[in-house]
Each structure stands twice: as structure tokens, then as C-alpha cells.
């Protein structure tokens, strides 16, 4: 038995999360206390982040054979951890007023974070698969967490069946590749691809099947159909988590995988992803147009946004990776912010997801409405928000790589997308008074509000002065 090749320090972030989740389980076993477990979760997430900050100066090594810890991975890990922290901050008040048991949620949250974390640093099919599955299985339960709501169950079962199915596709694809290459490490696959001139068709088939799995996780067309239903059925903080951490981890994995195998060199792969990207953009935006459920709108918008992100992904290169990083940061901020708003406005019965719940919001809760407006504008890519710089980054990387068709589609879709974002804004600014003012419980919601303000402030700051973030990203990507 040799453990010698693994330095425990190297995988400390993961260890932290594991320990935290175990501690959480223990604490439940002793006494259920929402506040305690919330503190534990947030504290450990913060600790991971602080650790990464300190540790970030020294990166770029591998834990054979599963993990690679490089700047890219570290950066995204930090991002994921912070996003989970934000989600957990938003969750506290949300679950506090729900009748369910709250404590298990945090365990699942920690585990899901762990899964996503493993995804972004994996360089091997095994770690890919395990990370993905930890994430997925935690999410099944998180989606269906509020058991009394019929929609939670529905969303949960849909997500479960579909995710398992797509995992099967992913696995089969991996198996085909493994059968062809003889190794499950990304690097070996890349080397193999570089060494043979005439690629065996099984490779492509393998990639194709893997794409099904990955596409499902990212909610790309035509594997997107779960997105709106799950977004709608899941509790708002969980939706925030799915929209950000879960998808982000997969995106990073995809970037890393394709970076290793130089996926951009294979027209088949580029073609497949281009088709998927274009279809995602159009489908997402068109579907959102007349939707009146805010969560579903955001779901459709996320389909489109992942399509946009594919542009940078396809562009590849350092600019593409930078663009992906930047876009992810902004996208996380915005999505968590937007769902945070939904969470803050939700009541015992149901989440505040109907457009009518937002009528006249600006005049009832100006602060929240301002935050939501900012988030929506960022999603729409309007200047002064991070979303603008993010989209700009995507377009830049796309033009740099001559992906004109994709860029054109992106632009057209940005325009279509405007409609439904400003539709929500318009509703919020409507003069007509909406339903009764929901009394927010100030003591609890102060956390949420502060979180939202911080998110908004960051998002706008990155919109006005993105250089800081760009420098940071470049540091890490060195």
C-alpha cells in the first residue's frame, strides 16, 4: 500500500470540504441546530477560500493520476467556493422560514461543492466521473429538498432520471475512448490523438457520447429540456447553485479536457459544438420570450448564456480561457444575485416566481428591485455591468478566432434576449401596485441583503473596472 505519492496539503481544499461535511453529519447526530450548521458551512467555505488566497501563489502541480492543481483550477475552485458561500448565506433565511429540516441541506451543499471542485481540477475520467456524480447525487436531493411541494418531487425525479441517463451516455463514451486509447488520463488521450494521423471513428463516437453527458449537465440544446423544470421546482437557493456552481464546474472541465486534446483542431468536434451553441442560443432566447415564470425565464436565459459561453470555449487559446473565466465570474455573480432576489421574496407557500409577484416591486422594495434590475441588465449585457464586459470578452475571443457565424448568432440573440430581461424590469417599475407587500423579517434578511449588495457591487465594479479581475485571471492562468 503506498500513499506516498499523495501529499495531503495538495488536496487540502477538498479535504476541508470533506471534513466539514463529516463534522456537519456529526453535529446533526448530536443536536440539530440550524444556526450552528450554517455557521459551520459558511465558515469552512470561507476557510477554503482564505486558504486558496494564501496558497494561490504557489500552484501548478499534479496529484497523479487524478488531479491537476494549476492556476486555472485554483481560480475556479476559489470561485466555486465563494459561490457556494454566497448560496449558503442566501439559504439561511430561506430555509429558516421553511418547515423542513434544514440541516441536511448544508451537508448536501458542501458535498455538491466538493463534487464541483473535484470536477474542475480533474484530469482523469475517474475523477471526472466521481466529481460529477457527487455533484449530481447531492443535487437530486437538494432539488427535491422541500418535500411538501409537489413540484420539488417532480423536478427531483426528472433531474434524477435524466442525469443518470446522461451519466450513462457519458460513461459509455468514456469507455469507448478508453477502449481505443488505453488510458483515461486527458493527457494520454491528447498524446494519442497527436500520434495517430487517421483517427479511429470510435474516438469521435466516444466524444459524441460524452458530449451528450456534458451537454446535459450544461443544459445545452438539445439536452436542455430539464433546465426550466428543475429551475422551477427546486428551492431558489438550490436553483442558484445549479445555475452557477454545477454548470461552472462542468464548463471548466470541458475547457480543460478540450485544451488537453486540442479539440479545436477537429472539425467534427467544432462543428458539433457550433451547432449545439447556435441551437442553444436561439432555443433559450426564443423560449424565454413569452414566459411569465421568472425562474423559467432565467432557466431559458441560462441555456442561451451557456450557448454564448461556447463561443469562448470554441475560440480556445489563452484569450478564450480568460474569457471563460471572466464570464464565469460574472455569470456566477449575476445568477446567484438573481436567484437570491427570488429567494428573498419567496414565502412559505411557494417561491416568488410569477411575473406578477414583481409588479411594482421597485416601489415596494426599492433596494431589492435595484439589485434585480442590475442583475438582469448584466444578463442582458448592458454596459456598466459585468455582464457587458463578459459578453464583450466573449465576442473579442470569438472575433480573434474568426468564429463569425457564432458571433453573429450571439449578437442576434443578445437582441432577442433583451426583450425578456427588460420585460421583467418593466414589470418591476410598473406604476400599478402589485400584491400586498411582503414583510421581510429584517433580522434574518439582513444577511441576504448584505450578500446581495456585495454581489451587486462586485458585478458593477467589474463592469466599470474589469482590469483588476482580468489581471487576477491572467496571474492565475500563467
Amino acid at each position, binding site marked *: 500500500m503506498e500513499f506516498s505519492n499523495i501529499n495531503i496539503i495538495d488536496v487540502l481544499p477538498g479535504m476541508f470540504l470533506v471534513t466539514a461535511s463529516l463534522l456537519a453529519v456529526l453535529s446533526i447526530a448530536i443536536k440539530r441546530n440550524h444556526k450552528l450548521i450554517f455557521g459551520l458551512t459558511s465558515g469552512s467555505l470561507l476557510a477554503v477560500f482564505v486558504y486558496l488566497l494564501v496558497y494561490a501563489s504557489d500552484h501548478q502541480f499534479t496529484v497523479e493520476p*487524478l488531479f491537476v492543481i494549476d492556476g486555472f483550477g485554483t481560480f475556479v475552485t476559489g470561485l466555486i467556493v465563494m459561490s457556494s458561500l454566497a448560496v449558503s448565506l442566501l439559504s439561511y433565511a430561506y430555509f429558516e422560514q421553511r418547515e423542513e429540516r434544514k440541516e441536511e441541506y448544508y451537508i448536501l451543499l458542501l*458535498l455538491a461543492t466538493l463534487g464541483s471542485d473535484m470536477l474542475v481540477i480533474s484530469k482523469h475520467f475517474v475523477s471526472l466521473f466521481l466529481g460529477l456524480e*457527487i455533484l449530481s447525487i*447531492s443535487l437530486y*436531493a*437538494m432539488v427535491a429538498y422541500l*418535500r411538501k411541494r409537489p413540484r420539488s418531487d417532480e423536478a427531483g425525479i426528472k433531474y434524477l432520471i435524466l442525469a443518470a441517463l446522461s451519466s450513462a451516455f457519458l460513461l459509455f463514451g468514456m469507455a*469507448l475512448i478508453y477502449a*481505443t486509447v488505453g488510458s483515461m488520463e486527458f493527457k494520454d488521450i491528447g498524446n494519442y490523438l497527436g500520434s495517430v494521423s487517421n483517427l479511429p471513428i470510435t474516438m469521435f463516437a466516444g466524444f459524441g457520447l460524452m458530449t451528450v453527458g456534458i451537454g446535459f449537465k450544461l443544459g445545452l440544446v438539445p439536452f436542455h429540456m430539464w433546465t426550466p423544470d428543475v429551475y422551477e421546482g427546486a428551492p431558489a437557493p438550490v436553483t442558484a447553485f445549479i445555475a452557477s456552481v454545477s454548470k461552472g464546474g462542468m464548463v471548466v472541465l470541458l475547457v480543460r479536457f478540450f485544451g488537453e486534446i486540442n479539440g479545436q483542431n477537429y472539425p467534427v468536434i467544432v462543428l458539433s459544438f457550433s451547432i449545439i451553441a447556435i441551437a442553444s442560443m436561439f432555443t433559450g432566447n426564443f423560449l424565454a420570450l413569452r414566459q411569465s415564470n421568472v425562474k423559467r425565464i432565467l432557466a431559458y436565459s441560462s441555456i442561451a448564456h451557456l450557448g454564448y459561453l461556447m463561443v469562448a470555449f470554441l475560440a480556445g487559446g489563452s484569450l478564450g480561457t480568460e474569457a471563460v473565466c471572466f464570464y464565469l465570474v460574472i455569470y456566477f455573480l449575476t445568477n446567484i444575485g438573481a436567484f437570491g432576489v427570488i429567494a428573498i421574496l419567496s414565502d412559505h407557500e411557494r417561491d416568488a416566481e410569477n411575473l406578477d409577484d414583481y409588479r411594482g416591486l421597485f416601489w415596494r422594495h426599492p433596494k431589492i428591485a435595484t439589485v434585480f434590475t442590475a442583475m438582469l441588465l448584466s444578463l442582458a449585457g448592458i454596459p456598466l455591468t459585468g455582464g457587458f464586459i463578459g459578453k464583450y470578452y466573449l465576442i473579442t475571443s470569438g472575433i480573434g478566432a474568426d468564429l463569425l457565424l457564432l458571433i453573429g448568432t450571439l449578437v442576434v440573440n443578445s437582441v432577442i434576449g433583451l426583450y425578456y430581461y427588460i420585460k421583467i424590469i418593466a414589470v418591476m417599475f410598473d406604476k400599478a401596485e402589485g400584491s400586498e407587500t411582503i414583510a421581510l423579517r429584517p433580522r434574518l434578511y439582513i444577511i441576504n441583503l448584505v450578500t446581495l449588495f456585495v454581489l451587486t457591487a462586485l458585478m458593477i465594479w467589474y463592469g466599470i473596472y474589469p482590469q483588476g479581475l482580468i489581471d487576477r485571471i491572467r496571474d492565475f492562468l500563467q
Partner: protein
Amino acid sequence: MQVTFYIAAGVAILSTIMVITRFNIIHALLYLVVSFMALAVVFYIMGAPFAAALEVIVYAGAIVVLIIFVIMMLNLKSEAVAQEKKWLTPEVYVGPAILCIILLAELIYTIGVGNTVGITGQIVDVKEVGQSLYGEYILGVELSGMLLMSGIVGAYHLGRQKKKVVHRFLEKPEE
């Protein structure tokens, strides 16, 4: 060896077809066990005895039993079979089946064209697997522990019986 393989493969395929076409879920599960058994044979032929054992123990044993438990908890009766009969009509299955067959054809073509390397049939036994598992894949094992934990926590939370809040006179009689 080849003959054994083909027989086992035939059994696996046939029993799987039976699984997906049975109306009675218990029957289907029994066929599933058969299918898993047949696959265990295939594993063995492929030189993976450890995997074959696990297949029988975990799949055919644990998982199927788990499902049967749940079915028993749900207390499904004969109406369920009739229901299944009603659900599984040609117009329901023809379309999807055709799609899947297309997919299968593509897959078969792909695989058939691609791999012509013979299997050496060298046995990779428990020791090797174990070394690998607790050597390079040790982190994977730990992670799979986490995987199971999340499964358990999730199942625990979701499976917990709700407290009945409805007055007992208003309750529907159990079916």
C-alpha cells in the same frame, strides 16, 4: 470461450428485453437478475473475476433487492399490471424504439469498424485491482465514499415519512 461468451451475451440480451417488456414489475426484476448474472459470466470471461463477483453481489443482490423492497412498500396490486398493459402500446414504443435502433446501428457500425484488437484474456485479478484501487485511485475511493454519503443523506432526507397533518377522519383510506 467464445461460445460461452456468446451464450452469456445472448442470455443477457434476451433477459434484458424481457425486463423492459414485462408488465409485472416483479417479473421484470427477476429477469434483471438473470441479465446481471449473465453479465457476470461475461465479466469472468473477460478476465475480471472481481468485477463479476461484485456484479452478482451488488447489482443482482443489493440493488435489485432494494427495488423490490420499495415495491413492496408501495404495495402495488394487480391493477398496476393492467395499468402497465395499458401504457405499453405500440404507438408508445414504436417511435422511441426506432430512434434507439438507429442509435444502436450507428454505435454498432462505429464499434465494428473501429476495434479489431483481440482481447488477451489476461486475468486482472483482485490483487491487481485492489492495488490499483488503493494505490493511484485512493482519492477516488475516498471520493466514492463521499458519493455514497451524499446518497445516504439524500435518501434519508427524502425517504423520511412525513408527519401526517391532516385529520384522521379526512384521510383517504390506504390503498
